[in-house]
């Protein structure tokens, strides 16, 4: 099991290099450091930041499809609060609080009422987006100084959000691999009942994962608002699918219990290369949508095949039964 996980990340790394150099050879413009940093990396940062905490959620066997809507709602709330009060601090605080509340609401439905995470977050995705649509009356909201700073400030040649992402990436890698909390998440994903009997407070662990996802989504929403300088309620549409694609591509099992943060980070880079690479190659946006869906399907199928072989080789795993249900 350990060796396979190791191999999987290496395989992902090789895939990344292949895509990177393949696209680079076709379109030499791609290799300009300026393009790599301020287009390829800068554009993926919001998704990458959200994918980190959502990996935690997926490892517990849950999922969060509402993150795009949370990001939009937070960004929009921040913009509206700033427009009303002209206070940067208040806008940032409100945006983060909204993200936190949204995550808490998700966790409440999932852990207290035992509603399947997919259904919960599918419904809250519409609820949060609907609220964003309602409070803006469908209009655009403009960025506030703090968001603009987050979206555009550069330290030397490097945009601030890349530095923030690296910081978060390190924190989350350590959180998942070096702390008890990380181990608990794996345990919950593999067998919730057994974890509870082993004395793990499963409800609290899952709650934290959802709330952290909400907060990070809110933060990403502010960066997004700053980067685009205005935002509509539809801004987060399709984000959930991209994040799920990143996580599944990174080798995290959608059924929980298996996955690494490093895989998610490499997968983020792969999606970044694909996105900006296809743009460099002048491939229309619709094809990019298809590629996105296809990548997700292929990674799901690949994972299913690997797992089937593993179950055939080793002893029968419970995860499969849970999936069929």
């Amino acid at each position, binding site marked *: 099991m350990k060796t396979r996980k190791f191999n999987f990340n290496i395989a992902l790394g090789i895939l990344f290099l292949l895509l990177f150099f393949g696209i680079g050879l076709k379109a030499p413009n791609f290799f300009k450091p300026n393009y790599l940093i301020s287009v390829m990396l800068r554009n993926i940062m919001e998704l990458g930041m959200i994918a980190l905490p959502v990996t935690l959620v997926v490892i517990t066997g849950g999922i969060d499809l509402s993150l795009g809507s949370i990001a939009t709602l937070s960004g929009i709330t921040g913009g509206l609060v700033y427009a009303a009060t002209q206070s940067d601090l208040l806008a940032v605080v409100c945006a983060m609080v909204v993200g936190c509340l949204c995550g808490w609401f998700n966790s409440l439905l999932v852990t207290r009422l035992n509603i399947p995470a997919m259904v919960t977050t599918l419904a809250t995705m519409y609820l949060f987006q*609907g609220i964003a649509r309602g409070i803006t009356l469908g209009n655009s909201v403009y960025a506030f100084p703090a968001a603009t700073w987050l979206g555009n400030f550069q330290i030397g040649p490097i945009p601030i959000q890349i530095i923030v992402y690296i910081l978060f990436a390190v924190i989350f890698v350590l959180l998942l691999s070096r702390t008890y909390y990380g181990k608990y998440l794996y345990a919950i994903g593999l067998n919730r009942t057994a974890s509870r009997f082993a004395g793990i407070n499963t409800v609290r662990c899952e709650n934290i994962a959802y709330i952290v996802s909400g907060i990070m989504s809110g933060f990403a929403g502010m960066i997004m608002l700053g980067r685009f300088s205005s935002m509509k309620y539809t801004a987060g549409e399709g984000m959930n699918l991209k994040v799920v694609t990143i996580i599944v591509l990174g080798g995290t099992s959608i059924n929980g219990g298996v996955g690494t943060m490093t895989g998610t980070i490499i997968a983020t880079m792969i999606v970044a290369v694909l996105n900006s690479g296809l743009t460099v190659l002048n491939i229309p946006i*619709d094809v990019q949508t298809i590629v996105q869906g296809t990548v997700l399907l292929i990674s799901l199928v690949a994972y299913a095949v690997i797992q089937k072989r593993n179950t055939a080789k080793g002893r029968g795993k419970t995860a499969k039964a849970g999936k069929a249900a």
Partner: protein
Amino acid sequence: MKNTKHSKKAMPSELALSLFVIIIFAVLCLVAGDFGSVNNIMSILNRFSYILIASIGMNIIMLTGNIDVSFGGIISVMAILEAFIGKTGAPIYVFMPAAMLCGALLCTFNALLITKLHIPAIVATLATTQIYAGVLPLLVEGSIYDLPKTFTWLAFDAKVFKYVPLSVILALVILAVALLMMKYSRYFKKLYAIGNNVKSARLAGIDVDKTVIVTYAIGGLVLGVAATIIATAGQRVTTTMGAGMEMTFIAAVVVGGTSVTGGSGSILGTAFGALLLSIISPALYYLGISDTWSTAVMGAIIIIAVSVGAIKGVRRKNAGAEKEEAKA
């Protein structure tokens, strides 16, 4: 055992739902006089007809514990296909079966991903939604317009008793067939068995994979009828006609009392759920609330419906039923 329990419980909740819908209707008629006008009611009924038809398809899929969020995407595909065929002047009995066939094929593809490759239904169908949404704009430049009169026949000319749209009759016929099937067919009993417990259904001799695939195919067939009603509503068919609609159908099913984990629920409940959802948007309009809130109201209604179902489930569990089933 479970079935008797379920039917005892389901009847009152359907009754409550129907009462709720009637009260909303009565209040609206009192508050806004126009609401009860024939035109408005007919437009609500038209909306109701396609929501009902598609929700029945969604309902049988959800009974097995699966879901299909690509319904909206498939509707877009079918609408464009129908416009292609309809543009040549072909009548409805040519392009509607074509759409139904197309729906059945696409849904079967979803079902194959779910059953043969064990991909969770929601993720698999999210991915296929994305693919459909990307393929359509490549095939069609924005929209197909200037469609002939033969194409819009269903929406404008097909009226029974001068007022009632044919689409409503179509929906009621499908509803009646579904209700009869539910009562007498062994096939529907299989759906409940699979939704309740896949393993024991398999041990009881049900070919689970085959049943699920057939269910998706039927869902797709039925969806073809709904898509026809949606597509023929005007002389222009766009590539995003069905985008986001799946949520309405899921909402109708869930509001109607069908469990999101499968195994319990009824078509009749779904019918009332569909009725409720088809009056939300006009109701908001007549109450003077901006239409921009309709998405939020829809989301809130689903959450409330799911929560009520979940609280009921928790209570039943406390009464001594199995623990982990609902989570899986």
